[in-house]
């Protein structure tokens, strides 16, 4: 990219199933204070633009963007909201810095999932109100249809999906932020509650509360700051057909488009060889498998062998979701992408503690906006 952009500060709260002691403002404030300290900046003085990521229905407030500036130190400054994943917010920040008009940008996303008393009733409002919603189906049916077709066309089985669940939830033991670490055993799978066959409750990332704030800066600022910069080598995002009727049910081509855009900027032509580890969407167990292929990290033909051989595990050639992913950290709505980015930055800086992989140089981070969307964003990070 013409104007190099780096991540220079990260801050996050813990990801917990409930957070009754703090309001969303206070949750975000905690993450913001940590991120600014990590970057060594003062938001009132040093930040040129702020991007927040949220959706009104998830917050229970219309035009929620009203309530974002104060807890970020952004009052009366340049702030806008993206109705997208945190990685879309990062894309918005990177673009702004690349214009040359902004040098330091802040991206925020959070989840107060526990405050949604009717998450299924809220989620269904994202379905098309004319063609789909009158049928009265819980959004999970879309995942059931997609998973069934995916297993049918890929030749994989539920056992492969379970391996993803076991891996990610075990990974989360080493992540102090993660809220969903567990040893999942065969007994658990056998007794899992079915949601939308072949999808069981254990295949689904469960919601948690949390906030993540990230500070980005252009090269001139990076040189003045003390910390180790993590460069955004590429960032891509893309959409597919949103309607259930016309979308491609066989593959998430929008993920591939986003990846191609990010890889092109990063000069990556063979992702499997050039990327050291991946933090990717695993909202549902099968999604991690789909996304591995869509991101060009594993070929469809090799996928089953890869999973069976544990190549995406801690000791594998391509560790995937070493953080625990959404299955292990918890599902953070708009903050999913930033949580993954946070952990990837820790890895690349060598500050990942018990999660630390050996000297990784380059990571791919990917997010998907969940049911019923066909939007994805992909970032390539490096040191």
């Amino acid at each position, binding site marked *: 990219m013409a*104007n190099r952009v780096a991540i220079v500060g990260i801050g996050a709260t813990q990801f917990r199933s409930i957070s009754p002691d703090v309001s969303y403002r206070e949750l975000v404030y905690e993450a913001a204070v940590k991120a600014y300290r990590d970057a060594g900046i003062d938001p009132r003085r040093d930040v040129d633009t702020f991007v927040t990521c949220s*959706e*009104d*229905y998830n917050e*229970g*407030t*219309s*035009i929620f*963007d*009203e*309530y*974002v*500036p*104060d807890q970020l130190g*952004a*009052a*009366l*400054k*340049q*702030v*806008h*909201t*993206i*109705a*997208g994943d945190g990685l*879309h917010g990062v*894309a*918005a920040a*990177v*673009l*702004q810095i*690349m*214009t*040359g*008009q902004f040098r330091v940008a802040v991206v925020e996303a959070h989840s107060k999932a526990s405050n949604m008393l009717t998450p299924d009733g*809220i*989620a269904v*409002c*994202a379905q*098309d*109100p*004319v063609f789909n919603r009158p049928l009265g189906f819980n959004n999970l049916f879309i995942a059931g249809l997609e998973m069934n077709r995916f297993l049918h066309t890929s030749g994989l089985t539920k056992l492969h999906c379970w391996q993803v669940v076991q891996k990610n939830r075990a990974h989360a033991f080493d992540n102090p932020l993660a809220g969903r670490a567990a040893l999942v055993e065969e007994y658990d799978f056998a007794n899992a509650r079915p949601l939308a066959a072949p999808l069981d409750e254990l295949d689904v990332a469960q919601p948690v509360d949390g906030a993540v704030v990230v500070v980005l800066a252009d090269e001139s600022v990076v040189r003045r700051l003390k910390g180790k910069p993590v460069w955004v080598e590429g960032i*891509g*995002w*893309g*959409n*597919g*057909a*949103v*309607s259930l009727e016309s979308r491609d049910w066989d593959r998430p*081509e*929008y993920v591939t*488009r*986003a990846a191609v*855009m990010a890889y092109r900027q990063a000069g990556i032509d063979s992702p499997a060889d050039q990327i050291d580890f991946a933090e990717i969407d695993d909202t549902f167990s099968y999604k991690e498998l789909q996304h591995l292929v869509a991101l060009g990290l594993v070929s469809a033909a090799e996928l089953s062998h890869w999973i069976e051989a544990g190549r995406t595990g801690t000791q594998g050639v391509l560790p995937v979701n070493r953080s625990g992913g959404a299955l292990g950290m918890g599902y953070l709505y708009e903050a999913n992408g930033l949580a993954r980015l946070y952990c990837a930055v820790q890895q690349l800086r060598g500050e990942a503690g018990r999660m630390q992989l050996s000297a990784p140089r380059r990571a791919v981070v990917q997010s998907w*906006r969940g049911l*019923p*969307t*066909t*939007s994805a964003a992909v970032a390539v990070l490096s040191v």
Partner: protein
Amino acid sequence: MGRRVAIVGAGMTRFVRRAQETGKELAFYAASEALHYCGMKLNQIDGVVLGSAPDTFDGVHMKGEYLSDGAGAWGKPYMRCYVGGGTGVFSVIHGWYHVASGAFDTCLVVCEEKMSSFQPHPQAAFLTIFDHTTERPLKPNLLWIFALEMNRYMNTYGLRKEDIARVAVKNKNNALDHPAAQIAAPVTLDDILKSEVLAWPVQRLDVSPVSDGAVAVVLAEESVARRITDKPVWIEGVGWALDTAYWTNRDLCYPRYVEEAARMAYRMAGVTDPRHQIHVAEPYDPFDYKELHHLEGLMLCGRGEAPQLTVDGVTRRDGELPVCPSGGLLGVGNPIAAAGLMKVAELFYQLRGEAGKRQIARKAKRGVAQAWGDLMQVGTVVVLGV
């Protein structure tokens, strides 16, 4: 520094109280009209951005995703921005940074709002813009905050209602020449002053109507823009600012967030004397006093002086500083985000001399469009020039 970015095409639907079209269909109409205007095809568009205000209007959660196909986002990088009522003008800023960054050569900007889906009346959707714990239990409505702000403004500067109402007369009559307009008949000062009191000092005709509609513009970087048209309209400056959410801690008599946004945009555009270097303005006018408030925030006149400009006829289409020649939200209608983008589209037509009956009398090389939103909190400003 960033690349130069131009608007090369614009298009819109009619603004109507209740549209038969779905939100997707409205977005499609606007996107397709804008592409037609500059003779472009969707495959020449690198990225798409969407502006739309609260999801509760359309009644669709994640409505950016829902509207994506109508907006032309299939297979493209696509993002939805929002800053409440400021979204319409912000969407152009959003598109601007896509192109100015160098990552995109072209960008389609679409704004849509379908307010009529909300039952029984779209105004009720505004209850939920207030703080859920400290304000909503008082059952506030949107008129409250406008009335509170208008009263503070009138009190601070000792303004008379009839001077403010002249804005509504001007804009509603300007709109009679706008093909998208919801208004159908001329309006007099007397009509406005005699219209029903909703929330004193706000009366029925001080307010813009609720609407369904969509607007789109096409942005392109310099070399592409010059290939598409010999009359590109340049985005010379952009600015925005979001003030604290603690709105009851601020003095509502002056929109300092608009001033912040304007200063940023003027700095970028090299405008040092806005009153003389800006030739036409489209400030946000959901209520008549807001146009005045915003003219002051845009530093096109001194504080408390905007009403006199209207009385003196300066802001008429044949005046020295035409303001809202489109007819504004008061006249054309107010499909929130789309209304803001309509203002940018108006400057595009005016600066190219393509505004037909709405064409302002004076020669204009530079204009400013501005929108406002959230809890009287955000200013978004775009300076355009030819």
